């Protein structure tokens, strides 16, 4: 297998570059720094946001009054998760609420179907607390009225992703405190039967509805109301939002640093340590050699960055209990690679021109500074001078000018990839079309790579 002449040297140089860089000390340092920022950030912000965001109780106690064979009162609790799956083994405590102070009556574990029952004689107010892990939920059972032939507990919540509280959980038990066959009707239309544990769930339409529970020909009807979803807040805190902060905030800064640190001396180091002449005298074309340098360093940076990003997403998923939108997560992984690919050719150009390690370091630092600090600051100052009265115009100006800045192109692409609901929350929402920004990305990458080849061809040996 022989590469075409103009690409000769690509494979040897690429592998060498990949191998040498992966084993370097600075690689180790950068991986640690990146992991601290990305994974640590995912953990910190992910936790914070999941605490502040809307949440549903992880367990539910469905409680019923029941009457035993000799007429004694029985307090019944069925313990499930919010979706009606029983939680066997949950700790259930009963308390007599009719005395002061309330007196504990006993603690048991929910059985295999999630039930716990306690005969309480003729006591009439019983508190029930259920517990799994460190989640806790409580409710009360009252015998102040005669117990009907069947008892019903309902709970209206937003259980799916539409954030509308239109999911109605229904739990039905017979007078003896055990499940009975029950049919559920919604607005006079039969929907379904409850399951063997007495649970059934209905999805309600907006506005008022009647839910009818029918047991052995006898009906109970409940009036319920489903409100419109709350007008969506400015943004929704959740894993997607945290990922947006990670992508548009942290990654924009730290990934270019990673790329710069690994590649700033990719060529100047060979010159300084004296290995360049030997390399250039090998049967390799200049184009092949430079592309090898590019692909080798790119792979050496892309591999750890992708692994750390995946770890960040995993941690974020773990702490918020829910993963970010798949397509957004994928786009984040891909755009991180694009950001690396933006900075490496730039470094290769300066590395070709630098005669000493000192200049190479200086060039590397300046490149990062230029696009991450100077360029945005100058753009900001210019935009406020040029358009003092229009926020909209300033924004548009900074996005158009930003097309000359790889970091800004990356951020704009990230906001394109972000889910609609949070797109506007991070200075995002492009006034430009995706085609325009993507073309700028292509021009930037191809242009810089071509310039790197040209520079290397002309200046490598001088």
């Amino acid at each position, binding site marked *: 297998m022989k590469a075409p002449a103009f690409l000769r040297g690509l494979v040897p140089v690429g592998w060498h570059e990949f191998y040498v860089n992966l084993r370097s000390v600075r690689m180790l340092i950068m991986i640690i720094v990146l992991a601290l920022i990305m994974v640590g950030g995912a953990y910190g912000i992910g936790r914070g946001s999941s605490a502040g965001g809307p949440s549903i109780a992880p367990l539910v106690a469905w409680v019923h009054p029941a009457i035993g064979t000799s007429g004694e009162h029985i307090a019944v609790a069925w313990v499930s998760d919010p979706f009606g799956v029983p939680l066997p083994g949950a700790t259930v405590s009963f308390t007599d609420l009719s005395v002061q102070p309330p007196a504990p009556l006993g603690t048991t574990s929910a059985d295999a179907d999630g039930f716990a029952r306690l005969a309480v004689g003729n006591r009439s107010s019983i508190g029930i607390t259920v517990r799994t892990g460190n989640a806790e939920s409580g409710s009360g059972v009252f015998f102040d009225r005669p117990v009907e032939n069947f008892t019903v507990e309902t709970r209206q919540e937003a259980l799916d992703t539409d954030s509308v509280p239109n999911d109605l959980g229904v739990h039905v038990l017979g007078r003896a405190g055990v499940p009975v066959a029950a049919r559920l009707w919604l607005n006079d239309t039969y929907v379904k039967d409850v399951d063997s544990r007495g649970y059934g769930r209905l999805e309600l339409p907006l506005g008022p509805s009647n839910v009818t529970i029918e047991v052995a020909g006898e009906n109970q009807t409940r009036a319920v109301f489903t409100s419109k979803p709350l007008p969506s807040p400015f943004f929704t805190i959740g894993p997607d939002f945290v990922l947006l902060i990670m992508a548009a905030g942290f990654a924009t800064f730290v990934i270019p640093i990673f790329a710069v640190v690994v590649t700033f001396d990719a060529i100047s180091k060979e010159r300084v340590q004296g290995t360049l002449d030997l390399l250039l005298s*090998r049967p390799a074309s200049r184009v092949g050699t430079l592309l090898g340098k590019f692909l080798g360093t790119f792979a050496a940076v892309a591999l750890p960055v992708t692994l750390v990003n995946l770890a960040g997403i995993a941690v974020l998923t773990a702490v918020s209990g829910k993963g970010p939108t798949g397509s957004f997560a994928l786009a984040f992984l891909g755009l991180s690679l694009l950001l690396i690919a933006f900075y490496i050719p730039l470094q290769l150009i300066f590395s070709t021109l630098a005669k000493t390690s000192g200049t190479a370091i200086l060039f590397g630092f300046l490149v990062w500074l230029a696009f991450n600090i100077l360029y945005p600051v100058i753009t900001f100052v210019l935009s406020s001078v040029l358009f003092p009265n229009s926020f909209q115009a300033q924004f548009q100006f900074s996005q158009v000018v930003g097309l000359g800045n790889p970091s800004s192109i990356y951020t704009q692409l990230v906001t394109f990839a972000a889910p609609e609901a949070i797109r506007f929350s991070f200075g995002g929402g492009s006034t430009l079309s995706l085609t325009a920004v993507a073309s700028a990305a292509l021009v930037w990458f191809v242009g810089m790579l071509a310039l790197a080849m040209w520079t290397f061809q002309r200046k490598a040996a001088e």
Partner: protein
Amino acid sequence: MDGHFVPPDVIEVEGLVKVYGRKGGTRALNGVSFSVPKGDIFGFLGPNGAGKTTTIRILSTVLAPTGGTVRIAGHDVHEDPMAVKERIGVMPDEVSFYPTLTGLAHLQYYASFHGIPRAAAKRRAIDLLGQVGIGDVARKKVKTYSHGMKKRLALAQSLLHDPELLIMDEPASGLDPQGMRYFRDLIRFLNGKGKTVFLSSHLLSEVEQLCEHVGIIDRGRIVAADSIANLSSKMSAGAPIILRVTAEGITDEAIASVTSISGVTGATRTANGLDVTVQSGTDVGPDVSKALVLAGARLKELKTSERSLEDLFFALTKGGRV
């Protein structure tokens, strides 16, 4: 030579010019031309800064010339660099390697450019490292190598692909006498196996011992290019001879009478006697002693000093003329 087979030239350099940097930068080479026949050991001799390394970097396709042409085994370095690269083995002046790779890893890396399959490359690399005498450190990182070991590694890498032309920039620099001798023997051995060797040096002694032909470069120009034998005989042919006279009591009359001898072109006093410059091809020794004794000097010794190649080298590279 008439009627004999004349081997083609492996290196043909014509009017080579190199200006470093932009116009008006250092003019390192100023119209260098020479050629090296196949099978030769060619010595490229010149003082520091003469342009040897610059020439070698152009020959090894590293550096693009500003003007002139270079052909190696008939291939132009500019038009067909790949053909040239495949035929040359280069030993640069500085022996520098990747500090964290082993000697073996270096050879395997370099072999991958030449399309040598992995297994074969490894065998060849281990073989070569043994041949140049660093087999025992093949798996040690290069940063632990001595200068001599690096020189040997540099030699090994230049031989990986069995090139027909070896280009060596100051192969003897920094070596101890044993190391120099080892390299000399190895270069002769390789030459015996049919390889053409082009080596640069700033030491005449080294070149004199090894090379058949030399090119002498000074300040970017070739000042002499010929076989060692021809250069030496040119010296003895036309060049004046100096008689070193050791004597006491040399009077001005004595000097006058010596200079009047036919064939003598000059006489200057020295610390312990007199240097007499004599046209070559004349034998005036007895006449000079006679004249000195007659003028009352106490003659102790009279020696003929032939000019050596060393003198020629110094004369040429210090702006002097033969």
